[in-house]
């Protein structure tokens, strides 16, 4: 527990004892100290990936740590878009990471266009069905 926390700093001295607070991140139980932000508590536990990019699924975590960039946004107690770097942890807080979202309307390349009329859609569906049966 709390492996990455600096408890004995050469300049700042010893870390004083603080109340331990329990919270969950993506269903897993973690503990942090009173006064920690969500980000610092998770970082102390070795968790740096706070969410993935909604479209590509690339991992994201702390970036500016001053509430500027919204890279560390997580869902806290059901409320989405909460900045992990500014929000202090509370007892039994339920934190969820940001997940990849479906992209049903994304085009697959330069030649791929969304159908503009139903007739276009029907021909497109037919050709893709033929391709599927051939494959």
């Amino acid at each position, binding site marked *: 527990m709390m492996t990455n926390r600096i408890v004995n700093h050469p300049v700042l001295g010893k870390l004083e004892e603080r109340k331990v607070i329990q919270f969950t991140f993506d269903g897993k139980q973690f503990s942090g100290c009173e006064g920690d932000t969500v980000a610092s508590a998770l970082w102390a536990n070795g968790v740096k990936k706070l969410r993935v990019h909604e479209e590509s699924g*690339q991992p994201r975590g702390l970036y500016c740590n001053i509430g500027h960039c919204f890279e560390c946004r997580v869902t806290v107690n059901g409320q989405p878009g909460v900045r992990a770097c500014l929000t202090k942890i509370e007892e039994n807080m339920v934190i969820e990471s940001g997940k990849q979202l479906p992209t049903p309307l994304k085009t697959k390349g330069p030649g791929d266009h969304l159908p503009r009329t139903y007739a276009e859609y029907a021909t497109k569906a037919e050709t893709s069905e033929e391709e599927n049966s051939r494959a």
Partner: protein
Amino acid sequence: MKGLEKIIICRCEEVDLEEIRQTVSQYGSSARETKLRTRAGMGYCGGRICRPMLDAILKKIMGDKPQDQIPLKIQPPVRPVTLARLGDGLHHDD
């Protein structure tokens, strides 16, 4: 700037330097047009991180051509707010 082509400029919309350079060389676009074509600077953070970078990159690529004289605009709201917050402080929880 070799080796930096894959560096991400806009983190919200995941646009890298290569994509911006390609768009500029293909369309000869201004900072604003590049923003609209690549979505760089139009993400969740409202361009707060990458807007100055985009302006600087475009200035470097295009030089001081007159079409680049207008820097990218800052659009309200300056910080992301929920629709519920804008809705006159009314809450419909009950």
